[in-house]
């Protein structure tokens, strides 16, 4: 999968959270099973400039 595929439908109204996969047990569309709290799993928040 290309990185551009991840953002092609995003607009200025969207943000993106980037997670460390080592902190998730499983991920599927709209479902995330965290091994820990999401705050620990999150690496970055991305959004567009306002």
């Amino acid at each position, binding site marked *: 999968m290309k*990185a551009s595929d*991840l953002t092609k439908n995003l607009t200025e109204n969207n943000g993106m959270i980037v997670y460390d996969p080592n902190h998730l047990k499983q991920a599927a569309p709209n479902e995330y099973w965290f091994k820990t709290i999401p705050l620990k799993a999150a690496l970055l928040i991305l959004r567009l400039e306002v």
Partner: protein
Amino acid sequence: MRERVMPYRKKSPGAAKNTTNAKEKRGKIPAGKPVRVGAKGKKKIPEIALTNWKQFADVIRRELGEREFIVRNFDLVVFDGIETGNPVEVDLLAVARSTGNDRRKNATMWNAEGFDHDHDRVPSGKNLMKSSMPSGSTSVAVRTKRTVATIRSQ
């Protein structure tokens, strides 16, 4: 308090001087580093404001190198209770900053019986994207397809 987030600027030879803003020049924000935002006492998730989403790959490469990652996109703002005629704006960006997730505690949709919070307690592996959508949900956080991917960052 206004959150401070450094805009992302693509690095290019000869353009380095143009990528620093006034705060960087004063030495308050290290050039090339995202400003960390979040509540006091909690982990602060680095946050980067892009000019456009095409910069995503460059930022990921710069920040994560070869690390694998998973992404989740979300709506920055949604409205609860639109059927009541008195909708309430919900700042999901603030939720994400403070929790690392965009699912707030009081969201009717996310907390509906049978929704995947139940999976957290009893994981079944079943994807309930369609079957668990509660009728009469009071949230307008439309269940758009979340992007889930694990890719190499190059």
